[in-house]
């Protein structure tokens, strides 16, 4: 991917993240994601309806990679079923860990395709997806 385009996508999501700000609503499941290796700290809330994730919101303090990855994840996952989400998750993790993956289903998440070059930031790119795994258990 073109580095300039990649950077522009990440920065757009960092500066104007989708659904930033939590709301008071008991129908959401709220999960704190605390990156054990560093200092990112995000709260992410999910709403599940009729077997699909119908809404995701988040807030917190984190680095440019974690914030942008959270925003892109939200954009990609709203409206998806458990099976669709599992497929995205599997391919995303494969990409981050340099295994075979299908780029066609990852959309803008492809911007992190070479994050392996900065091993200390892999955890940042995976951070929002850690909470997603806990949600999948509940779907």
């Amino acid at each position, binding site marked *: 991917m073109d580095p300039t385009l*990649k*950077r522009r996508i*990440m*920065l757009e999501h960092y500066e104007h993240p989708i659904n930033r700000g939590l709301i008071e609503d008991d129908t959401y499941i709220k999960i704190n994601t605390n990156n054990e290796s*560093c*200092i*990112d*700290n995000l709260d992410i809330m999910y709403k599940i309806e009729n077997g699909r994730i119908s809404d995701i919101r988040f807030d917190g*303090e*984190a*680095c*440019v*990679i974690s914030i942008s990855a959270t925003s892109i994840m939200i954009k990609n996952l709203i409206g998806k079923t458990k099976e669709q989400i599992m497929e995205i998750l599997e391919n995303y993790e494969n990409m981050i860990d340099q295994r075979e993956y299908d780029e066609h289903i990852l959309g803008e998440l492809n911007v992190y395709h070479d994050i392996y070059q*900065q091993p*200390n*930031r892999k955890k*940042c790119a995976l951070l929002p997806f850690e909470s997603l795994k806990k949600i999948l258990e509940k779907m």
Partner: protein
Amino acid sequence: MHREDFPILKQELIYLDNSATTLKPQKVIDAVVDYYTKYTANAHRGDYDNSLKVDMMYEEVRTKVKDFIHGNDEREIIFTSGTTDSLNRIVFGYMKYFLKPGDEVLITKAEHASNILPWLELEKEIGIKVKYIPLENHLVTLKNVENNITDKTKVISLAHITNVLGDIRPITEIGKLCRDCHILFVVDGAQSVPHIKIDVNEMNIDFLAFSAHKMLGPTGVGVLYGRLGLLENMKPTCFGGGMNATFTSTGEVEYKSLPSRLEAGTPNIAGVIGMGAAIDYLMDIGMENITKQERNLKAYFLEKAKEVPNLVIYNKEMEGSLIAFNIDGIFSQDTAVYLNHYHICVRAGNHCAKILKEDLLVKNTCRISFYFYNTEKEIDQVIEVLKKSKEIFQIVL
């Protein structure tokens, strides 16, 4: 100053994370390697030359440590694995048996996790009360300490210099207050012993904890200092070889006297000998000279920092040799990754002082921490990089 003594500095490296750990001079490296290549043996055991040499070298370091912190007696110096270990032994080897339910321990929210979590555990275990001295503009003042002492206060436990803001506490004055009020005074010296002269008697310190690796020595070794009368009543938290005099199958046990009683198992011999070499090295330079050089570096940085308008510094007025800062609007970790691109090593985060944010209202900062081998030229380079921080996302993404 003395950069040629540090082999790691031959590479392109601006190392500004000295509060985390320090670089090692050749003399320390040689001392460790010599033990492994020329006279490896266990301590306190054999009757052969190398073992006797190890005993001598190991015990000599105890004297060096005693002199370095101006103690009175070698038996007051216990080798541990580091500050965390030392503080845990103070809490679980002494305070656990000395304190009674309801007794109060005063600390602050700016302490390192190692000077908070053991106390919180002991609070759960035996019902002591951990109380926080309120900070005044992030600082501990004598008056504030005084105001928070009650007749139940039995211990005050404070870092001499904090690792987030680098403020130096009025240890001598608090020490005197503690002595007058019959309160035990525990000092976390991890960030002070490497940088300023310590005198445990003048400062009225009852227990002192510090680490070798933050003062040019090896990792995995540190010191627990305790006044003799206190250490004599400290229970070992670890039992086994080297610390028992006799024992029988029926459970009759007699432990050795100090300091062996509190040093079970084969010690970190190479580490202790390396620490001895580090102390020799620091004494040769002179602690006053080290303190002076660091103050000059900090003052120089603050002056140069005026050229960087979007630099927010949180601890300008603190005396210690560290700078807590952020680039306005940039997450601290992104700044650290950006600086790393220019081989500049700084720390981002909450620096193991996770509850300080309740007071500081800033969750994460970048931290530059100097040691005497840093230079004005390095600071110039850092300032140049910080000036270009508009490019940060071109660099880190």
